[in-house]
């Protein structure tokens, strides 16, 4: 499979008032052409910083200490700002978490969509407007002709997110990065937007990075999953690997804390104890150790490397070390997975 994007050993810190915040501490992942990769993790784990690094819109106080970002064989970090401007929009589109603040409040939305077409693609105005209307219809905005001349505040949250998607699609990008595109929306609207993104992905054969803190939406969106914790990828695998055979205790906690359709009143949802580490002082050993039931002595001293589980499945936990004691995932999670597997078999068979 062709790799469209590859991030290797990315390290980023922020110069903050209190010191250097080590937000990204060696992130590596790749994205195959035409697939959807979900990056999952608690808020603050560095998901947005990673996407901002890929699109090079990091704030001024961010420093990339190390790493490589390769898009279609091009070294994105080595490009000049001018060269990179042709990547933004044309190749990589970005969808933001909060569509309320992502749109310019005092510019008509039609103009916000046509802007790049006219300024960058040098498209004649009429043509650009026709294209914008087409896009607005494609993302499901009714009365596009009329709404073209309205301002963002005249739209609901879900409609605004559709506009942001239309803007991202305007220049026909091949890679779409969605940074928690539904977090700021009502639950009822969330699934509509997810469906829209899925539909667009299929129609245009886009490669998609889908960022979320909610494993619940991952199952029906993604092909592969990267689980992120405290500035690192701790587990990587296909959706099946992650949902049916998770290896990392953090992934276990995420899965166990996720409600699903057959969660009954009596069932207990697990809450992950403690909080993510303060990234001003990242811990010496595994960052998850203080919150981990299964932590061993080594976990507080040395960071685990990525252990290979299968060709598609990797996890960074000492539990996978051949000498580690045999530790199983929590019983109720195991039970749940078994139920789900049976369910899935029924559908398939």
């Amino acid at each position: 499979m062709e790799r469209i994007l590859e991030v290797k050993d990315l390290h980023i810190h922020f110069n903050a008032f209190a010191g250097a915040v080590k937000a990204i501490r060696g992130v590596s992942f790749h994205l195959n052409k035409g697939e959807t990769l979900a990056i999952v993790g608690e808020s603050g784990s560095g998901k947005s910083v990673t996407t901002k690094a890929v699109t090079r819109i990091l704030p001024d106080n961010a420093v990339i200490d190390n790493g490589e970002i390769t898009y279609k064989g091009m070294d994105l970090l080595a490009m000049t700002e001018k060269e990179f401007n042709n990547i933004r929009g044309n190749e990589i589109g970005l969808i933001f978490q909060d569509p309320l603040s992502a749109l310019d409040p005092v510019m008509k939305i039609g103009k916000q969509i046509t802007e790049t077409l006219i300024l960058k693609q040098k498209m004649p105005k009429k043509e650009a407007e026709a294209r914008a209307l087409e896009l607005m219809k494609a993302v499901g905005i009714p009365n596009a002709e009329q709404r073209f001349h309205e301002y963002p505040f005249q739209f609901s949250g879900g409609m605004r997110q559709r506009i942001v998607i239309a803007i991202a699609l305007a220049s026909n990008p091949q890679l779409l990065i969605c940074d928690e595109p539904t977090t700021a929306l009502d639950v009822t609207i969330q699934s509509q937007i997810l469906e829209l993104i899925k539909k667009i992905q299929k129609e245009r054969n886009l490669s998609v990075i889908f960022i979320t803190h909610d494993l619940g939406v991952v199952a029906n969106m993604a092909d592969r999953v990267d689980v992120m914790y405290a500035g690192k990828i701790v587990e990587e695998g296909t959706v099946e690997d992650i949902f049916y055979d998770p290896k990392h205790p953090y992934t276990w906690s995420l899965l166990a804390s996720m409600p699903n359709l057959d969660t009954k009143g009596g069932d207990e949802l697990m809450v992950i104890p403690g909080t993510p580490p303060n990234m001003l002082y990242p811990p010496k050993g595994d960052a998850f150790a203080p919150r981990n039931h299964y932590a061993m002595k080594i976990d507080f001293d040395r960071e685990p490397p990525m252990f290979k589980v299968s060709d598609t499945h990797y996890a960074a936990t000492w539990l996978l070390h051949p000498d580690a004691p045999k530790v199983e995932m929590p019983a109720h999670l195991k039970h749940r997975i078994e139920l789900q597997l049976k369910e899935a078999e029924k559908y398939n068979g």
Partner: protein
Amino acid sequence: MLKYILKRVAAMALTLFIILSLSFFAIRLIPGDIAGQGAAPELKAALEARYHLDKPLLEQYVIFLKNFLSFDFGESINLYPRRPVFQIIRDKIPTTLQLNIFSLALTIPIGLACGIAAALKKNTWVDYAISAMVVFNVSIPSFVFATVMQYIFCYKLEWFPFLLELEDSSFSLSKFWSMILPILALSFGGISTITRYMRAELFEALNSEYMLLSKSKGLSKLQSTLRHALRNSFIPLCNVIIPMFMNLLGGSMVVENIFGIPGIGSLTSASIQTSDYYLTIAVLFFYSCISLTSMLLVDLSYGIVDPRIRIGGGKVRE
């Protein structure tokens, strides 16, 4: 919109009435005597009779209001005896206006440029230098500025004349030369105000999410800044710039006095000092009109430049 304007104008009229009444009574509390100290009692009596000052205060007030409502603003007592107050003010306006137009022509572009530069170069030496200038300007009152400049440039260096050349109303280079110092003195405050506002607003706009979107869709930094950040940051600036335009008419009491400029500003202090009751009231009234009008204009301007308010109230549709 029309209803809103009418409401505001009615409120303005009420405010002006209160100001007028307050100034009518307050002015009598200021020590001083219309005839001047040691004037003959007959003279004083005659003067008082002419200006209704011999009647009970309340009756004076009624007469005064009646006249005022019929646009008879009274006559000057001491400063320009018997000249209608309206004429005096009208004649003073051009001088003040001339000076202030120059000052504003300096203030707005320099203020905007400094504010924009500081925001774009935030936390660099450019920003620090501009911020230092702002603090310097804000913390030193204009009369100190004016006096020090006058001392250095007019007295020590003799570059500029002490007083304004105002013999003719036409415009000449030497007249402009004589106006430079007061123009500068008038501009410093405004420049800092605009700089401060512009810097804060633009900085906020530059760090907004819509700038990220604008960049991520492929606009260059310059394009994003011009098309999105600047547009957004200009809107709140109406707040400071419109009142500055209105102040063109008002002038500055301090600067006009120091440089001996016979404009509205120096008229105000002179009329108070000479107990020129009706003149003082009229000048205060004039100032009140200016500031109330500019407040109204500021509010209305938001309705014009900001679509959220212009179309607002229009509900969000699904």
